[in-house]
């Protein structure tokens, strides 16, 4: 049952990712695209956790952790860029 | 293991540690201390390189297994006659360049001495390594150092030339990795000797894929070596960068040539079974075209540094010829010529710097300008270098040229090589005699304001120039050594031999 659940979850997250990609591509504004990428970061955390569950391996945990940390940095950098142009000032 | 047993890695580690030391606060801001340390380090490197050379000559090939892991699992440094010779050459150039720059050029931008050291580390590593991925790493070390050095002193031209140089080489690096992936994917190993052992055992399909990878490497090395049609970056890059950097760069193309020799001349050389000499059909026309186009550009050159850059291209073509001829004799001729052309071109670049310094706005362009305050000594050095670069006696150029011509025994080859090499010599003669007459003889008035050369600059040039007649006077021993290097190179090294030597 668990493996089915994982597969279902995986499929759902894949759909979510596809929808994010759709938003990323149609925009229409740059902030929209940044939201899309940000959401993709979060969805990929789920994806990696699911991968770890599927393989029964805890080795992917750090990947998820890192995405959580870095996704934030990336999004705030992009936003800062939109607001100020100069992200380190 | 005594310290002496670690000698092979010294040419890599000395510049590394000196560079790192130079970055620390107490030295980073004290240019005079930096100079002293850098010069001392370079002298030490020359000594080490020559000690290593004699060691190799007496005891044979030296292998240094890094991390105590034997080949093919660990990385090994292989000091054979050829690689050690190249290390000596780079040490000499490094010393000359450091001396020259210590007259003041090192102050025109940050981190000059550390970067030169890193550059030397990269060059020496590339010469010594026996591992193809490690070669990539050292290529990158020397490239990134050269990117940084090329812009030393600043100026629009440098930036412009550097952009071209950097982006082309970045693509080159990507191609290098594609090629490495391909070779690893079929051969399953990275050690030169092990790869050479495995190449003849490849099956049909893998054979063709490996061939693709190997030929892709040719493009990569060719870009570094500035062979046609990948030479475009060179004239602008070498002629716009600062004097000492340009002089050091004289050996950079030779790194490409060296790698072609190692990989396509030996690994995919005579013993490679079905993949034997796959690069030769390409190298022949390329070599001849490189000479031809280089020579045409030499004739077209309007300033001394551009001229000298184009002479570098001609020398690359000439070396490719010796690779293409693919005999021990040709290889040894090529090695002799390589030393000669590197030293002569480097010295000419340094001289061009002095000339530029003394001619004011006219720089080194072939136009009428006021006379240089030190025209006499500069003219004398120019004449010597011109003679060497043209390939006329009594300096080493003629020995190299004659050796190469002698090595072309096959009539159909000779029909192309003789006229091209001799013709290129003639064009160099025409161009350099025009250059010399307009730089030194077509003058109007005296120039008293120009900056005279610093004695240390003359010392640097003299160090290089004096080698040219020495290479003729001691032509016997030098060419004997080149012969030894060529024999070792051509004989190749199996993994078993490598590991036996390492013990």
């Amino acid at each position, binding site marked *: 049952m668990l493996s089915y659940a994982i597969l279902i979850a995986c499929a759902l997250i894949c759909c979510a990712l596809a929808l994010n990609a759709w*938003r990323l591509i149609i925009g229409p504004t740059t902030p929209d695209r940044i939201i*899309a990428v940000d959401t993709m970061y*979060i969805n990929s955390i789920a994806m990696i956790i699911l991968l770890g569950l599927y393989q029964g391996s805890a080795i992917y945990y750090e990947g998820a952790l890192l995405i959580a940390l870095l996704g934030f940095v990336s999004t705030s950098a992009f936003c800062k860029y939109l607001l100020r142009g100069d992200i380190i000032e | 293991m005594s310290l002496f047993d670690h000698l092979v890695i010294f040419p890599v580690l000395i510049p590394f540690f000196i560079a790192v030391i130079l970055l620390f606060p107490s030295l980073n801001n004290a240019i005079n201390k930096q100079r002293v340390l850098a010069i001392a380090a370079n002298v030490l490197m020359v000594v080490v390189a020559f000690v290593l050379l004699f060691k190799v000559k007496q005891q044979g090939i030296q292998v240094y297994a890094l991390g105590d892991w034997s080949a093919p699992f660990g990385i090994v440094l292989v000091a054979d006659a050829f690689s050690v010779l190249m290390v000596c050459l780079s040490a000499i150039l490094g010393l000359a360049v450091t001396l020259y720059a210590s007259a003041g050029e090192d102050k025109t931008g940050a981190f000059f001495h550390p970067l030169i050291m890193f550059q030397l580390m990269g060059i020496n590593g590339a010469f010594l390594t026996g591992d193809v991925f490690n070669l990539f790493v050292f290529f990158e070390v020397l490239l990134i150092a050269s990117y940084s050095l090329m812009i030393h002193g600043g100026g629009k031209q440098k930036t412009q030339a550097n952009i071209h140089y950097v982006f082309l080489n970045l693509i080159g690096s990507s191609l290098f990795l594609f090629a490495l992936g391909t070779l690893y994917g079929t051969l399953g190993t990275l050690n030169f000797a092990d790869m050479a052992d495995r190449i003849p055992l490849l099956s049909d399909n893998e054979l063709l894929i490996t061939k693709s990878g190997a030929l892709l490497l040719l493009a990569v090395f060719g870009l570094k070596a500035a062979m046609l049609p990948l030479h475009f970056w060179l004239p602008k890059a070498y002629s716009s960068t600062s004097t000492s950097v340009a002089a050091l760069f004289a050996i950079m193309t030779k790194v490409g040539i060296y790698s072609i020799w190692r990989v396509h001349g030996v690994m995919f050389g005579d013993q490679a079974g079905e993949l034997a000499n796959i690069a030769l059909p390409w190298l022949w026309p390329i070599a001849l075209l490189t000479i031809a186009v280089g020579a045409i550009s030499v004739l077209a050159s309007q300033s001394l540094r551009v001229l000298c850059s184009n002479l570098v291209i001609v020398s690359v073509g000439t070396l490719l010829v010796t690779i293409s001829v693919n005999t021990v004799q040709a290889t040894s001729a090529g090695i002799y010529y390589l030393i000669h052309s590197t030293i002569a071109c480097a010295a000419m670049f340094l001289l061009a710097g002095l000339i530029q310094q003394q001619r004011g706005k006219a720089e080194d362009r072939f136009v009428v300008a006021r006379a240089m305050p030190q025209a006499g000594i500069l003219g004398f050095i120019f004449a010597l270098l011109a003679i060497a670069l043209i390939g006329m006696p009594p300096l080493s150029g003629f020995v190299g040229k004659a050796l190469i011509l002698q090595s072309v025994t096959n009539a159909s080859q000779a029909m192309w090589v003789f006229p091209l090499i001799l013709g290129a010599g003639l064009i160099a003669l025409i161009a350099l005699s025009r250059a010399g007459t307009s730089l030194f003889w077509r003058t109007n008035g005296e120039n008293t304001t120009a900056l005279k050369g610093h004695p240390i600059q003359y010392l640097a040039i003299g160090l290089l120039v004096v080698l040219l007649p020495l290479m003729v006077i001691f032509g016997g021993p030098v060419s004997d050594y080149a012969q030894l290097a060529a024999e070792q190179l051509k004989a190749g090294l199996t993994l078993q031999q490598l590991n036996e030597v390492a013990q």
Partner: protein
Amino acid sequence: MTVLIEVVVSVLLVFGSVVMLIGSIGLAKFPDYFTRLHAPTKASTLGVACILTASMIFFSIELGHLNLKETLISMFLLITAPVAAHMLAKAGLHYKVKMTDSTENQHLAKKAYLHKNPDDA
């Protein structure tokens, strides 16, 4: 692994991913920028937390000892997601993105914008 735990883990997984999918649907279908901004907060809070909890339970059983590592990710997300959303909202304001006409109090958006861009009055 007991069936109960398996059921719990499975339910958490499916529930979490449904929440995340809903968030992404929102991102895809909502009419304007500010409404879309609400979607990722959904995904990054409840959705991912469920999946992480599932993973936590699963590995605690699998490895035979307590495994709380995944809480760390949740914690990070709880701290960072609102700030990311805030930054995105600021960017949206700055960009003067189009809002659906049905949005109430649009003057407040303009007012907020003028706080940070007084020159643009």
